[in-house]
């Protein structure tokens, strides 16, 4: 019998990005010379997909020594086609990380998901993996065009693919090259360089998003790192990204994560949060069916 240990164990949610390995020594530029680049605006490819996911920890359960994390993961696709941005599809799934069989709490059904360990950190990691899997699922049905994902490139996708990283835990550039980051002006990017991660070969570059009003914040504030598989036409994609991301940058008046949190993705996240259901209602249901914490 699972008993409720805590509702919404981590609130507010931590920033999802875990520190990745820094590797300034393995730096290898892919484009020459090392200086800021800007290009003529170019049209967006059609269709243009944005995939993003969202996870929410809903309850921590205990059965004797065992712990399980009930959570909700959601993923969705926004497509830009014919001049309009529209929600294409979305999926919501409730999972119980660490459970061995489905758990029902009223109308809510939590499907079991395996965890690498039984501590809280492993459970949370399991939840993240469930989200990534769901993102992969919604992206699997897509074809043609360009796919933009939030976060590092993890998916395997047949067409061109861009991942973008909002927060910079890792350093990829050695000192002299890193100086260019401070000199980048809005709408400019660095040359591409190689990144290796978990056996993947990627091309990556930094670009600077507009963050009005200019001049009030340090120039690093609007940096976005973009990556794409090295096997693709990374140079073209890098140029295209200058026509893409600055236009989609959010405004600091509206979004505390501006400018890196792109507007269609922000809207998708709001929509996903709505489809995950009200946390208060879910909390009451869990408390009612699994006993007070």
């Amino acid at each position, binding site marked *: 019998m699972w008993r409720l240990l805590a509702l919404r164990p981590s609130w507010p949610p931590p920033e999802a990005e875990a520190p990745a390995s820094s590797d300034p020594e393995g730096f290898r530029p892919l484009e020459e010379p090392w200086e800021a680049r800007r290009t003529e605006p170019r049209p967006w490819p059609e269709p243009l997909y944005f995939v993003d996911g969202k996870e929410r920890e809903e309850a921590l359960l205990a059965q004797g020594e065992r712990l399980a994390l009930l959570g909700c993961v959601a993923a969705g696709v926004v497509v830009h086609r014919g001049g309009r941005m529209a929600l294409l599809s979305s999926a919501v799934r409730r999972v119980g990380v660490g459970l061995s069989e489905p758990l029902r709490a009223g109308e809510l059904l939590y499907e079991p998901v395996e965890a690498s360990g039984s501590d809280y950190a492993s459970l949370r990691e399991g939840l993240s993996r469930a989200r990534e899997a769901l993102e992969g699922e919604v992206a699997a049905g897509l074809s043609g065009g360009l796919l933009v994902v939030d976060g590092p490139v993890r998916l395997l996708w047949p067409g061109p693919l861009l991942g973008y990283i909002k927060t910079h835990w890792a350093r990829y550039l050695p000192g002299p090259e890193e100086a260019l980051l401070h000199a980048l002006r809005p709408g400019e990017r660095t040359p591409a360089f190689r990144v290796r991660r978990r056996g993947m070969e990627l091309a990556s570059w930094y670009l600077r998003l507009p963050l009005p009003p200019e001049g009030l914040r340090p120039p690093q504030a609007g940096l976005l790192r973009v990556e794409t598989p090295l096997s693709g036409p990374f140079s073209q994609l890098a140029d295209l990204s200058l026509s893409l991301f600055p236009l989609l940058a959010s405004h600091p008046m*509206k979004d505390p994560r501006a400018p890196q949190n792109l*507007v269609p993705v922000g809207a998708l996240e709001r929509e996903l949060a709505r489809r995950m259901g009200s946390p208060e209602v879910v909390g009451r249901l869990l408390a009612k069916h699994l006993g007070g914490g």
Partner: protein
Amino acid sequence: MERIGVVLGRREATPLEFWVGVEGEGLLRLDDLVVVEAFHPKVGRVRYFGMVDHVAKAHEGEAYDTDTFLAVEGRIPVSLVYVAHVSVTRILPEEFLPPDPGSPVYLAQGEELELALYYEAMRNQKGSTKLPAGLLKNGEAAYLNLEFLNGVKGGHVNISGISGVAAKTSYATFLIKSLLESGVLEDAHQAKVLLFNVKGEDLFFLDKPNARLNEEARRVYERLGLPATPFRSVAFLAPPRKDGYVPDLETRLEGVKAYHWDLVQFCQRGLLPFLFADRGFMTNLGLLVQHLTEKLRRLAEGQKGPHLLVEDWPGEDLPEEVSFESLGKVRLKSFSDLVRYLEYKLLGPETGEGEGDRTWTARQAKGTLEAFARRLRSSVENVAHLVRGDRPGNPPDPLKGEQVHVVDLAKLSPQAQMFVVGSLLKDLFERKERGQYRGRVFIVLDELNKYAPREEESPIKDVLLDIAERGRSLGVILIGAQQTASEVERRVVGNAAIRVVGRLDAAEAERPEYRYLPASFRQRALILPQGAVILHQPEIPVPLLVRFPFPAWATKREEVLEDNSAEALRRELLG
């Protein structure tokens, strides 16, 4: 049934009002009628009929107003919501449980529309009492329950609206057309109509077809079951010119008669008080007027007119033009003669400090007598052409002859307008009271605020109050109109069962007189186009916005469809 959306659950759904989310390509506008079904095991099936009184579209998922710019540029996804607020008009059976959110909403059409607007209840033992009153937005006919107009359950109509835009007179004439020719009013052939023309000469072509009537308007008439024809039986009456006997009209010459009263009629019918329309009966002056009215009545007893014979006016005081009868009586041949005679009776001979005739002065102080004389003298200019002693009187008689009588007031001074309206209404009401005419009488009177003002007392107001309060049972129905209902006596407006509102001005629409309209309708009254009115009737809990057709009769000279056939020309030439 056309499914249009679902009852929303994010906002409260109640038995009296709820919100609807419109689906897909669905279209829901203000005034559309919808029906929703609910089911509860204990009461069974319940149907809600309602009218849309608010519709809105919005972007869902936008956190800031400027997000719309992003959505238009295709940078953020938004979903468009289309919601409507429905005021319930009827619940069948009357089980006031709320509808379930998510219940399908259908457009009310055909039989459901009839249920929503209580049309199926508009009938009596003899048949339907649905009087066509215009067209609804969806093109279907809107009906009034005749029983609230003809006096059975209620009577009187009150129309408010800004002059010129609200088309008060047009709607009143359209209603008359519907009453007389839709066949719903049983004894329509017996009904009589008295129309007062207060502005311009718009009503003087009621019997002429309108050249501007197009096919579309004809179809509207057809839809309403009314012939697109001018009025058939109309008498036109206008006051004579001040310098003669010819009707004082500019745009129409043929077929118009001049009306006036002769002195004997003036005395016998007791019309004197209507010259003092701004004074109550309880003042000294009022009492004197009453007394003199009675004296004049006695004086005129048995006389044939048009002139008035008096025998106690000594020759030395006579104006030169006054002539003697063979028997020594003096013959009064004009209104000013009568005024002078009254002055003599009240104040004595002009020469010297004489006293008036005690039987006439009613013991009033000299000041009152002089005030009366002064006021009477000043009315000579205004009414001398309407009250005359030189030819037999022919005041309008709406109960005889043609079915519709149009009486012109437009060129008269305010005092003369009061006099004509007061005299006619009093006479008409008294005859109906005595049972001298069986059919119903409809009176159309604009500018009620002048004749029955909220603040002042006047004999005309008393007649109008009488009509408003007792006319219904006597078959005298008032179709009154005014720019501002707030300035009209409450009891006159309050007794009207049917209320009509055309375009209002913003300040007026906020007054308590219009509280019977829901807020959304008060708002819309400010922007009503010509040819549309808001109609409120007792049986239907929501007002209806109706359009009424372009008049089939001309409203000015230029609109008259000329009949150039040989027959018509011959008639015109030969007489």
